[in-house]
């Protein structure tokens, strides 16, 4: 039982990170129906900018959560600027183009960012400085570390905040309106270009936080780290129903837990014929099953409010 609990805890932590990244995918998709494949790379840049800042401060001997917080505070504006830049350079000129064009442009941006990061930070796996003592807490035989708790709390707060902004503020209303019908929203006095830019801004900010948290959690940063994470987060967004905020959160958490339980129990259930390395296969099988039964994802509804 304690093992089950441990797998669920690990899954929730991993899943909440997926969810944070998935929010960025789903918000952009909701408004301009574009799968922003460069989003994973924004997370990577956030993680590496954070790493550089944290390393600089840590080398003076400072430790603790304050250092991580400063890393996050520097990473957020960097990623926001990057997100805005990507939208301006790679997507806005293609707004009226066929849908395949911005998709290809997104993949191009993703490769360009990876190579740029490799030039700036090198190709080695970089070590995220140890600035935390990271005490462990025991719950019914399972272990949860302080970093895990902070990840759960931070992602929870950020998800709530995003939901509040989208549902309760004038800005959020404008976003939802632009998602439903950009031209009518424009006629009602909504500056759609500005709203799209703001969506990228929010998504990139969340990506920056996710990047620093991922780096702190696993202790490594590398120019290729955004790729798989982005793919998983995108999967989470599709699983939950792309375009839906709640869907991204649910999809992320679900994907994390399924992966961990899969890795934990596939081996013992199948008596070793299918090992823990098949957990990704299980996760994607789940995705296929969900899409067959509910093509719009768990929480996505055809024609409903997007964003």
């Amino acid at each position: 039982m304690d093992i089950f609990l441990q797998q669920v805890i690990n899954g929730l932590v991993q899943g909440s990170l997926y969810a944070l990244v998935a929010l960025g995918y789903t918000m952009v998709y909701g408004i301009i129906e574009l799968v922003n494949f460069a989003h994973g790379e924004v997370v990577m840049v956030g993680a590496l900018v954070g790493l550089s800042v944290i390393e600089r401060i840590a080398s003076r001997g400072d430790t603790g959560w304050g250092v991580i917080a400063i890393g996050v505070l520097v990473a957020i504006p960097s990623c926001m600027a990057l997100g805005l830049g990507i939208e301006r350079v790679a997507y806005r000129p293609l707004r009226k183009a066929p849908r395949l064009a911005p998709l290809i442009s997104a993949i191009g941006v993703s490769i360009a960012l990876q190579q740029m990061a490799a030039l700036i930070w090198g190709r080695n796996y970089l070590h995220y400085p140890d600035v935390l003592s990271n005490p462990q807490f025991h719950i019914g035989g399972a272990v949860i570390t302080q970093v895990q708790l902070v990840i759960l709390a931070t992602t929870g707060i950020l998800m709530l905040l995003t939901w509040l902004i989208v549902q309760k503020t004038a800005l959020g209303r404008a976003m939802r309106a632009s998602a439903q019908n950009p031209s009518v929203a424009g006629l009602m006095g909504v500056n759609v270009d500005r709203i799209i830019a703001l969506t990228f801004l929010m998504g990139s900010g969340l990506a920056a936080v996710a990047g620093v948290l991922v780096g702190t959690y696993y202790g490594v940063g590398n120019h290729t780290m955004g790729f798989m994470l982005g793919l998983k987060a995108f999967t989470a967004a599709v699983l939950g129903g792309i375009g839906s905020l709640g869907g991204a959160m649910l999809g992320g958490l679900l994907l994390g837990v399924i992966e961990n339980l899969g890795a934990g129990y596939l081996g013992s259930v199948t008596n070793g014929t299918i090992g823990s390395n098949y957990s990704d296969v299980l996760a994607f099988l789940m995705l296929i099953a969900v899409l067959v039964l509910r093509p719009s994802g768990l929480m996505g509804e055809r024609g409903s409010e997007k964003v």
Partner: protein
Amino acid sequence: MPRQLIPLVLSLITLGLVSCGKTSAPNSATSGEMTVLIGASNPMTGPQAHLGKDNENGTRLAIEDANAQGMTIGGKKVKFELVSEDDAADPKTGTIVAQKFVDQKVSGVIGHLNSGTTIPASRIYSEAGIPQISPSATNPKYTHQGFKTAFRVIPNDTQQGGELGRYVASKIGAKTAAVMDDTTQYGQGLANQFEEAAKAAGVMILTHEHTDDKATDFQAILTNIKAKKPDIIFYGGMDAQSGPMMKQIRSLGIPAKFITGDGGCSTEFLSLAGTSGEGAYCSLPGMPIEKMPRGEDFKKHFNAKYGEIQDYAPYCYDAVMVMIDAMKRADSTVPAKYLPELAKSNFDGVTAHISFDDNGDLKGGVITVYQLRSGKWVALETLGAKP
């Protein structure tokens, strides 16, 4: 002809001349100097780029040193030239690189770094008759396919896994072990050899789990392992995984000892694992660099040019030197001519005295076990036949 076209045509002609000159250079009999191409294939991108760069540096250093000696082979002054390619540690890319080397007519190949790329590529070199010396591929299969062109200057995993399995039982005193690998030909091969030897030495293997060579999250697998309470965890794979894995082992509160093969025995592991790595064991084929016949000199020589040695640079250096030595004895750089001499090598290298058995494996190789103590790999013991 329109005036604008003239520069274009001129440049095309020059290009043609240059490329002709390049392809015919290795065999040109007219010039006094002969250029001999030596291929080196390593992962220069991806998680193992740091090891790839290290290998390339070791190879380049040897080639520069050989050129500085100013050798004459077959009556002509010889200039060796390194052709370095990126195989991304990917078996498919590895075979593409191999084909490229064959098409370029390289005289020999130093590589590849990984067993997973070395084994499929070795067939292509064998068919083209080009000698290949891997500085770091340790999977036994590489030299056991019946290819006359395949050599290595590092002990294989039958030996490494075997020694480690016995070491865990006899010296560390573990009764139970959990085995993990990265499902590559290197990682899984080593893990299987370890498992076999440890079992034979009376260690109970509680579980054998798999991950991959790009993963960073091992919590689910480790949680499984935690439930089984092993005395020691063995990982067959590279440092980019074992470093973060080590951290997660400790943050999950698993008290088990940790041991890994040569893929994790690097300076990179130290920084990735941080303080969690304290007490971890690893093994490297061969002697510790300080105890290698000419290790100290090599270290100084290498550090002055490229900084810290990661793992296999000295082996790359030796691989090049053994190859050139065979060319000298055969008085030819033609693969078919010097290959028989290469098989008969009897060379005092930086890492060891190098001679090959019938398969192309290093004779009398040894394995050294290291432990991480106060942030440094400390050599504990050298196992196996003394050279």
